[in-house]
């Protein structure tokens, strides 16, 4: 069974801090994604990566960056956290580039920026 593990379930950070959210998948998936989920707004794509060291902007990349140095690990970085980045962050991976390849999600990290 595919496992996508996010390093923290809950995080509380202060405005201006640099924040790292880590995600690891154990099934050798090519694609990895970062989404944020907000009430009434659904899942919005921040960044995705289809290979090591490759990254593509999603719909809302402003204020975020990502790193993928190894195939199994995809990190989301908030360079200078702000209160409007308080949200549930979801990491996902998928096996290949076919359209019917479903995403496998981690259980999320709830980030609060004060």
């Amino acid at each position, binding site marked *: 069974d595919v496992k996508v593990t996010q390093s923290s379930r809950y995080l509380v950070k202060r405005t201006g801090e640099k924040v790292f959210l880590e995600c690891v998948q154990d099934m050798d998936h090519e694609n990895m994604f970062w989404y944020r989920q907000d009430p009434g707004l659904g899942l919005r794509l921040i960044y995705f990566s*289809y290979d090591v060291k490759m990254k*593509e902007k999603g719909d809302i990349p402003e204020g975020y960056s990502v790193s993928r140095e190894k195939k199994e690990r995809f990190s989301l970085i908030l360079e200078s956290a702000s209160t409007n980045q308080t949200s549930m962050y979801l990491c996902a991976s998928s096996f290949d580039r076919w359209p019917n390849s479903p995403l496998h999600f981690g259980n999320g990290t709830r980030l609060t920026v004060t």
Partner: protein
Amino acid sequence: DQQVKQNSPSLSVQEGRISILNCDYTNSMFDYFLWYKKYPAEGPTFLISISSIKDKNEDGRFTVFLNKSAKHLSLHIVPSQPGDSAVYFCAASLMAGGSYIPTFGRGTSLIVHP
């Protein structure tokens, strides 16, 4: 501007009856559609999908219907069970950066009453 719309934020159904969750999309280039289910404090899990070349796909109690001319799809759950109570996300896939990237709707919260 939303490309995938779930216009009903919530739906309440009696156990044993049919649940119908609706989804509309605007981009005719979408070529694959997926439904995900999300329980509180967990990541979304893949439920069922349909290719744009089909109009129906069935998996047990779950059936997805696609009407391309109307740019509309629906998920039918028959019979509904209390364990089906969750948030359901519709997603549509489009090629971007060499991979198929899903765009999610805002979700519909289904409550199945015993």
